[in-house]
């Protein structure tokens, strides 16, 4: 694309690759402007469209499957006890 105002452009005006743009989005580092640009970009870039879908699904799955729930209930008590012992 010959869009002169690619918001992903680096200071040296180098054109960012699809992969770099996608990663910025995935890593939650994109600005509002960059997200909009990428959305439009996906309309005409099949590889980005497909990768985005897969990578986003994976990211969401990691979030929902790997968060691990609560720490053991006695852990906070143990920590507090140890601190009290040390400071008394």
């Amino acid at each position, binding site marked *: 694309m010959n869009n002169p105002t690619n918001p992903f452009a680096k200071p040296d005006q180098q054109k960012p*690759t*699809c*992969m*770099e743009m996608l*990663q910025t989005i*995935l*890593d*939650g*580092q994109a600005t509002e402007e960059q997200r909009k640009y990428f959305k439009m970009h996906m309309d005409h870039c099949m*590889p980005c469209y497909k*990768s985005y*879908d*897969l*990578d986003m*699904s*994976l*990211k969401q*799955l*990691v*979030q929902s*499957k*790997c*968060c*691990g*729930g*609560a*720490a*053991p209930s006695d*852990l*906070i008590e*143990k*920590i507090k006890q*140890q*601190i009290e012992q*040390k*400071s008394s």
Partner: protein
Amino acid sequence: MELEEEVPKQNYSEKEKGEIFNQEFLPHINSMYNFGYRLTLDRDDAKDLVQDTYLKAYRFVESFQKGTNAKAWLFRILKNSFINDYRKKSKEPAKVDYQEVETYYNSEEVDRQITPDLRVESLKDMIGDEISNALNSLDVDFKTVIILCDLEGFKYEEMAKILDIPIGTVRSRLHRARNLLKEKLSEYAKSMGYNKA
């Protein structure tokens, strides 16, 4: 985000120390425990690691500036405790070689080809422990960046400080970590017959 070496020592009263500990440190205990567990893969070791981290945080509370990013500070302490204490004990093999990683931005086409053939549909079938197991099986440095970014939502700059690496390395390590995770999952998918290509 401020970390200990950049901040002048604070002067807290005992009461303030307790408040910081209870209000800024303890609320992160679930995230800390999960991080500890993913690193050690053992519930008791995770408890020890988290406990150790909190004791250190309390001991060095004067290096912590109230109202700054406590979570990043705690994660940094935990990660350092893991490397310095736990890892030594278990004598893990040396770090992986990242040489190849640094060149990846110049080889987009190659990269697309080696990206494992994994489909969204196969992912949706993974409703058990596949994802969690795949994450756990990654090398420590790779699973760490995925945990920090995807589970905990840290930004590059924060991750760079937690891990003591440049932002460029954070980026490339994340990229590599995601591909490794996809590789693992595509193996699962294949073994379970999800990929009917």
